[in-house]
């Protein structure tokens, strides 16, 4: 790759948000690869997956070496079995962590006035969407942020918010956080239900950072 970009007046220093000069297509290509070309749009889609009567969906190329923060959207989660969560497990260097090692804490608020805290220090999974009914139009939607998945020196964290409708037509809003308290590289994310199957759309994004 050339070290010279922009030729007015002569090869000025280039960085994101501070490009100067006139660029050839090759300059733009090389600068983009070097993360030095200003190109806005830092919420970058990694992959969208659609579940249709699946028991699990695995994102197996999450680009954890590029993104320190991931963003996951869950749209129209619909389980085949009543009151199922859409759960999350991480893979560490290709191996699924299925032990009772996850911690979470969440608050839910129901349209019937119910308010409760739920928590665990020995869960077998994290959550993205909670306890959705299996009748028609009972769906859950939500989002999660994941932090430090690719950092072998840090724990892997999650914050999330979602809404659900249960079998009796009570609407719930839920927000919470979770952690896999193990310093490791997480390279895959699994979404699954504990029994039956589910339908939904899942989109995983990376939030681009720069030095």
């Amino acid at each position, binding site marked *: 790759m050339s070290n010279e970009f922009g030729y007015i007046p002569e090869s000025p220093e280039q960085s994101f*948000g501070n490009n100067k000069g006139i660029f050839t297509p090759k300059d733009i290509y090389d600068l983009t690869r070097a993360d030095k070309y200003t190109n806005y*749009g830092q*919420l970058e889609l990694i992959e969208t997956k659609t579940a249709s009567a699946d028991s699990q969906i695995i994102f197996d190329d999450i680009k954890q070496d590029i993104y320190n923060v991931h963003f996951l959207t869950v749209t129209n989660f619909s389980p085949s079995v009543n009151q199922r969560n859409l759960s999350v497990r991480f893979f560490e260097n290709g191996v699924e962590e299925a032990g009772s090692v996850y911690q979470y*804490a969440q608050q839910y608020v129901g349209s019937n006035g119910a308010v409760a805290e739920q*928590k665990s220090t020995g869960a077998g999974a994290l959550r993205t969407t909670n306890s959705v009914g299996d009748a028609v139009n009972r769906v859950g939607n939500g989002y999660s942020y994941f932090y430090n998945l690719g950092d072998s*020196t840090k724990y892997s*964290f999650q914050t999330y918010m979602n809404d659900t409708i249960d079998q009796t037509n009570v609407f719930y809003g839920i927000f*919470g*956080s979770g952690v896999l308290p193990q310093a490791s590289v997480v390279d895959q994310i699994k979404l699954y239900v504990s029994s039956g199957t589910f339908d939904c759309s899942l989109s995983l994004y990376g939030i681009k950072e*720069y030095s």
Partner: protein
Amino acid sequence: MATNLEFIKSVEVTSSTSSVDIDNVFTDKYDVYYLSLTNFQTVGTTQTRIRLRFIDSTGTVVTGSTYDYAYLQMDSIRAFADIKNTNKTFLDYNLIDKAPTGAGLISYIYNPYSASSYTFSSWQNVSVWQAGALELRGTKGIGVEKTAQSIRGFQIYETDTRPFDKAKISVYGVKG
């Protein structure tokens, strides 16, 4: 083609400090900003709280008793707690601990640059800390700085004399 997050600035902490200023990031280009705070860790072995204060249009940190906030604190062992305060000198953002914990926080800042409105914040964060058993702590909160003034940046700091030596703070504009 721009999408709805546009990178503005990133600051990385690589040595011991008790405060870091992220200045000249709020402009008239956006009304809403997205902040990402990751990888915080304390120098010592005792946890500390990290807080946020704004920087006004002259570059001065806003240290008056003009901040209100409220959040739900959700722990994986102890009972949840409602925390709320008025007329404080900061927004209470997060609890951090020693390595290898790290932490994650996202926050939205609303109307900072407008001189005719207050500056609002909402946030959600997660960390772990240890005072006995290792425990998850998450919070979901809201806050406001109650002065109609133009804000151009912010400061992240701690006051427990337990500095942090690792952190990454990134600021994005949310494209309207």
